[in-house]
């Protein structure tokens, strides 16, 4: 479904991504794990067109998408829940969700999608008229995910959904991710919480300073000594 081939990305003079290739097949949860600053977010942002790669190729559902504008990719079924949620804090919850369906001009469909999000996250429904900025961290994460779902993505990129959340909430969020996947959304998940990520993913890649150093089935990675030593605390 998604095929990234040998992309190189620079931030000004900084060489951030040094030739990364990865693949996500339909129906999978694939995770990118690695330490802070390894380049995981940069990879996601390059895939969804927020950053341009210097070289390399990205294909989505067989079509080349390198250099295609972000909003066009959303139209084609690829979107991202960004790191730090990036919700529209000064707007009410329902407006955040409406904006998630910006490209859908059919008001009835949008209203129906909003109801679906409310069913998935009842907390959001209770607070639909509240400003998004007044939500707790976990609720904001739910809103960010609900907002992304409004565009009915076939491939959803998730950047650090567990960031800053309590262990119980992390568990909730991860079970929702799993549920989304079972309902047909393919997922590329970036996480620092390697254990949680590998526990729900089918496959994983380990990223270190702009390169992929290890790849394989989630289970194998979870049990590999390198991953254990580096990311799972022995």
């Amino acid at each position: 479904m998604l095929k990234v081939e040998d992309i190189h990305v620079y931030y000004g003079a900084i060489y951030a991504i040094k030739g990364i290739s990865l693949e996500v097949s339909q129906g999978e949860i694939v995770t990118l794990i690695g330490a802070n600053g390894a380049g995981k977010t940069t990879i996601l942002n390059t895939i969804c067109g927020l950053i341009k790669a210097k070289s390399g190729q990205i294909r989505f559902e067989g079509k080349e998408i390198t250099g295609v504008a972000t909003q066009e990719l959303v139209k084609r079924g690829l979107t991202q829940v960004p790191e730090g949620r990036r919700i529209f804090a000064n707007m009410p919850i329902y407006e955040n969700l409406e904006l998630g369906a910006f490209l859908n001009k059919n008001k009835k469909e949008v209203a129906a999608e909003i109801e679906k999000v409310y069913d998935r996250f009842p907390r959001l429904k209770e607070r639909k008229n509240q400003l998004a900025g007044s939500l707790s961290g976990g609720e904001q994460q739910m809103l960010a995910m609900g907002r992304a779902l409004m565009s009915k993505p076939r491939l959803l990129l998730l950047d650090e959904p567990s960031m800053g959340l309590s262990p119980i909430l992390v568990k909730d969020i991860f079970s929702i991710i799993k549920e989304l996947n079972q309902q047909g959304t393919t997922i590329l998940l970036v996480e620092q919480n390697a254990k949680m990520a590998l526990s729900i993913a089918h496959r994983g890649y380990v990223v270190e300073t702009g390169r992929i150093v290890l790849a394989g089935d989630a289970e194998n990675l979870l049990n590999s000594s390198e991953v254990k030593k580096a990311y799972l605390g022995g």
Partner: protein
Amino acid sequence: MEEFIQQLINGISLGSIYALIALGYTMVYGIVKLINFAHGDIYMVGAYLGFFAIAILGWPFLPSLLMAMAVCAVLGVVIEKLAYKPLRNAPRIAALITAIGVSLFLEYSMMLLVKPEVRSFPQVLSDVQYNLFGSLVISSRQVIILVVTIALMLLLQYIVHKTMIGKAMRAVSHDKQAAQLMGISVDNTISFTFAIGSSLAAAAGVLVGIYYNAINPLMGIMPGLKAFVAAVLGGIGIIPGAMAGGFLLGIVEAMVSGYGKSLYRDPVAFIILIIILIVKPAGLFGKNVREKV
């Protein structure tokens, strides 16, 4: 007391002009973080377009107003595309200097085009003086200025809060990347913002032409700066702030001139700017934004 209310009436009609121009400043700043110093000149171009329609084509008031607004909307979009868009990722000072360049370009191109002399606006609207409670006077033109301004402000509030493009404007102004991830085109949204801001300035230009009867190619400089003061006073980037700042500044100026100190009118406006920057730089409506992790 009567004198006070009289000046209040004058101040509100002057202030509504400032408010219309300030809205464009504040919307553009909110979305691209640029003080568009050419904005006052769009107002001037709007006044000339109104003059052209009324004096030369002989159009009535309303079609002339709408034509000036439409043409200036296009002008604003073209200026953004040609002058500011290439500098969107450049340091902000580069865009600011460009804005001053665009301002001078508009002023002196207009001089070339329409000659530098002052032109008197034709009397398109009859000027009737209404007496209120005996000695208070309000002119029909003041009433029209106020009605048009308030109608435009209501329309703007509707667009910004109720339509999807308005919501997109707020989203882009809050977080451009997140907005893109919703499928919003940042370029189109910025164009739309320039179009709306410029058309409001054009409306102000036509109204001023009718109110003061005189227009010239440099007429945009001072009201442009005053509207900038109004936008900062209300809190730059905040739409209700620009409206309040405009009315407040107009009232203060009317009071200063009404009580015989008209020479101090301009200094007072800029003293307000200095004070607000020292005391409450976020403006009257501004607040510190808290972020949650």
